[in-house]
């Protein structure tokens, strides 16, 4: 079956979600990916929404994606203070974030393009993104891939990746482990264990390494065993299209 860019990004994202994890999740593509993981390889994943809903077991997945009041089957329903406490107390295994700019260490800017005081584009700011990236055991970055986004250095460091490299998070005093991967419409990226710099792990079908380099404003390392991203299976696509997002609201 052919698939869209959003669909391969969703499937690649879902593969980072392990069974039994507690995952802090926003709306949009990451939420769809989390429900896909739950419907496939990670039935026991506990989704934590910022609103305080923990681990809902919706009868209908499609309904769950569109309805914020997933309270009837949740393990706990609380509020924002409580979901942020779970983050700060280190009880969240994985967070998923978007970005406007990202650098080779996975540092994210969602505050201002250009100078901080007189930006060329003022963005919304951190919201909960900094809190997630600082405190979750690990986080994943999901974004479209182009040279405006993948920059040599971020104009404003809103949300910490690996900061300046090995050991920098720990020296700064950050509790969480930092980014473990980046999923884009071109490929899947990891972070080198020695340098903490972004490396190409796989390119999506039909995408070349040159395409990725052309869309990235910093030098990208490449994994020696670079592969092609495993395409979405027919059954994954079927679940996405018929059960999770049948009206195409999110993808």
């Amino acid at each position: 079956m052919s698939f869209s860019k959003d669909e391969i990004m969703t499937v690649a994202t879902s593969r980072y979600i392990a069974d039994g994890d507690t995952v802090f999740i926003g709306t949009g593509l990451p939420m769809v990916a989390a429900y896909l993981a739950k419907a496939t390889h990670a039935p026991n994943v506990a989704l934590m929404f910022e609103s305080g809903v923990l681990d809902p077991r919706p009868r209908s997945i499609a309904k769950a994606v569109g309805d914020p009041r997933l309270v009837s089957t949740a393990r706990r329903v609380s509020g924002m203070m409580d979901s942020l406490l779970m983050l700060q107390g280190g009880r969240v295994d994985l967070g998923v974030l978007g970005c406007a700019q990202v650098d080779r260490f996975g540092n994210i800017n969602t505050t201002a393009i250009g100078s901080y005081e007189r930006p060329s584009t003022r963005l919304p700011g951190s919201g909960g993104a900094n809190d997630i990236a600082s405190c979750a055991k690990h986080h994943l970055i999901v974004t479209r891939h182009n040279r405006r986004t993948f920059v040599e250095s971020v104009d404003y460091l809103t949300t910490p990746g690996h900061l300046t490299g090995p050991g920098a998070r720990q020296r700064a005093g950050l509790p969480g482990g930092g980014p473990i991967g980046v999923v884009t419409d071109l490929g899947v990226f990891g972070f080198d264990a020695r340098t903490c710099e972004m490396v190409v792990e796989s390119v999506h079908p039909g995408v070349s390494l040159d395409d990725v380099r052309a869309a990235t404003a910093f030098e990208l390392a490449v994994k020696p065993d670079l592969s092609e991203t495993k395409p979405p299976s027919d059954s994954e696509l079927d679940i996405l299209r018929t059960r999770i997002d049948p009206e195409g609201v999110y993808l």
Partner: protein
Amino acid sequence: MPGSRIPERLVSAQEAISVIPDGASVAIGGHTLRRHPMALVRELIRQRKRGLHLLGWNNGIDFDMLIGAGVAAKIETSYVGMGPLGLARNLRRHVESGAVETVDHSETTAIDMFRATALGVDFLPNRTPLGTDLMTYNDGLVEITSPFTGQTYAAVRGVEPDFVLLHAHSADVHGNVQLDEANWGDNTVDPFIGRAGKHVIVSVEEIVSTEHIRANPRRTFLPREYVTRVVHAPFGAHPCCADARYGYDQDELRRYYEASKTQETFEEYLADRVTSVGDHWEYLDKVGVANLLTSATHTSNVKGADTA
């Protein structure tokens, strides 16, 4: 009780807002497009307040409208955006031109500004902003060392806003403020904001008796000890939603968002919806009973709006 000395604090929105001087610090409750005290926000604009320092933890149309109306000189929060609609356009215009100063936070450091004061201390330790530019540009975040373990923390400076504006479901005339049991969880932050201000003005959907408050004491989220003024403002969060009481008015949010594209069209919006309207009651007439009562049941026309 004859000769009761418990003061009555119910006033009109005009009276409650009239005491706020230009240049005051004003904290605003609610979350993105949820339960912001919009009737009070519109009254700030009607009374042509200037130079306000706005504080919040996660803001949307409340800050954007005040910025576009020239009311705000400085904003301090973790987020200003229009949720699923997109970027806050008045924020963009006025920050990019240098007209409005920004102080940025993470969500938890923004909350800790208020939580510190509510706890009676002048700072709280927090780890989230360490190593980021939140520390570089916000002098209310300063690196400190734990006297117990040597661990590095950011000290988040507590704030005591001159005024706090909140919207809630009900209150008595003395300022005992309640939320329905059916609420959406964002209101676990408002109680901290309400406990941090010098003067706390709460608009509510309905005024109830103190007997009603006492019959449902678990719903009281801000007792009168914290509250200086109560304002009766049904649909006072419109066009934001107010938990289970009413949903977003998506047509109105869209109209606002389209109008905010340019300063000129935004001023036309303000003239139509705010400054040409005498007060909140006239605003409700303008929106119309049928619109108010049915907007929540309209099918979503904003992508992803249901989960905002």
